[in-house]
């Protein structure tokens, strides 16, 4: 009997996949996502509840656009942020300016407390590599420091900012080439684990209680 239901489910999801134009809107195959991410099936379903909430804020189309993302992050869509833009771009692996559920889940998987640290190191490196050249340049670091200070209303003189960056590069840029490559970033982060604190969201561990999902066909038996 359960095989019959399974068969029907697979048939149903295949049909859905054919009709799916560009983006996966719902958890078409939560089991696939659970296999390919750190989440369990019930966590995927809970994540979908969160996704629905965020994606219906401005346009109820089952997709998260930049405005809805900003709204979810800052509780206002009037806030421009260099960092929110970078995060959005990294989530948007299809590069079409919108986030489908699959992109959302795969990206958030990196932030799970159980995700491998290498994924977190990789994600954070790409986050700070503003021009995506494969290394973090001094100029990019300065841009980010200035943006952060502006956001918090702190006024520091250029000298002070240069000083902060000098000290950072002194420690991080072990090859002394004026840029921080992946290896140097990895070494820096392993020495200063607090640099990765934003890469772990404890909330993801409690997500099934925060966003209960009442999808009855789900396989609750996940180990």
């Amino acid at each position, binding site marked *: 009997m359960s095989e019959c239901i399974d068969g029907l489910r697979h048939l149903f999801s295949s049909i859905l996949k054919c009709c799916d134009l560009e983006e996966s809107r719902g958890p078409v195959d939560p089991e696939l996502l659970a296999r390919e991410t750190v989440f369990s099936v019930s966590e995927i379903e809970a994540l979908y509840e*969160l996704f629905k909430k*965020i994606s219906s804020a401005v346009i109820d189309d089952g997709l998260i656009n930049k405005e809805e993302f900003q709204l*979810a*992050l*800052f*509780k206002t869509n009037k806030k421009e*942020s*260099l*960092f*929110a*833009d*970078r*995060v959005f771009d990294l989530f948007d692996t299809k590069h079409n300016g919108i986030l489908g559920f699959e992109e959302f889940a795969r990206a*958030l998987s990196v*932030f799970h407390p159980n995700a491998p640290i290498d994924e977190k190191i990789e994600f954070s490196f790409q*986050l*700070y590599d503003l021009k995506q050249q494969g290394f973090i340049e001094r100029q990019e*670091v300065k841009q*980010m*420091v200035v*943006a*952060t*200070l502006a*956001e*918090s*209303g*702190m006024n*520091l003189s250029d000298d*002070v900012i240069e*000083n*902060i*960056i000098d*000290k*950072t590069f002194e*420690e991080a840029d072990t090859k002394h080439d004026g840029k921080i490559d992946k290896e140097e970033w990895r070494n*820096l982060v392993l020495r*200063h*684990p*607090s*640099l990765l*604190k*934003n890469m772990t*969201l*404890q*909330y993801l*561990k409690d*997500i099934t209680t*925060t966003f209960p999902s009442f999808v009855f066909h789900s396989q609750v038996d996940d180990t």
Partner: protein
Amino acid sequence: MQSPVYYALVNPNLSILMNMCFIFQRITIPEIMKDEWFKKNYKPPVFYEKEDADLDDVQALFKDSEEYRVTEKKEEQQPTAMNAFELISMSRGLKLDNLFDVEQGFKRETRFTSKCPANEIISKIVKAAKPLGFDIHKKNYKMRLENVKAGRKGNLNVATEIFQVAPSLHMVEVRKAKGDTLEFHMFCKNLSSSLEDVVWKTEEDMQETK
């Protein structure tokens, strides 16, 4: 004595337990927790402690019986100079916790800047926290404040750390390490009113400027 009729509908182990609760003796909570029926599928609640790696040295303090009180030791070192990436990671755009919107504004951490020297900040925090019933554990410019009384989710533990952003500007981070977030929120409110002359800019001030 005949058991009430409804007992017949219930698991026999449970009915024995219920008898002990109501009829024969006042069973205590620890005794209930030892009972077989109670222990079946029981998972004791775990209160998540958000521990950062840089609190490891403060953790070591708990094992050091000498440092139970704040000592007047002369601190040689300067507060940790803020690494550019540490500064960047304070940006709100990188705090994806906000996507979850769970605690409706009760943050788990807060920060403020101060133009006072680091030692003065420390002594002012200590002066403010002690009367609120907190034990202080200090190492360099990191502190761990522990509420002697247990609250809703165990004893509230607050971690503070001072960073040097510029020679005359310090950033103080106040973070909940353990305990109830609402209690942490109340603690921060009390702390900020005692620290009015130390604080240069609070997080609210910092958010308001565009």
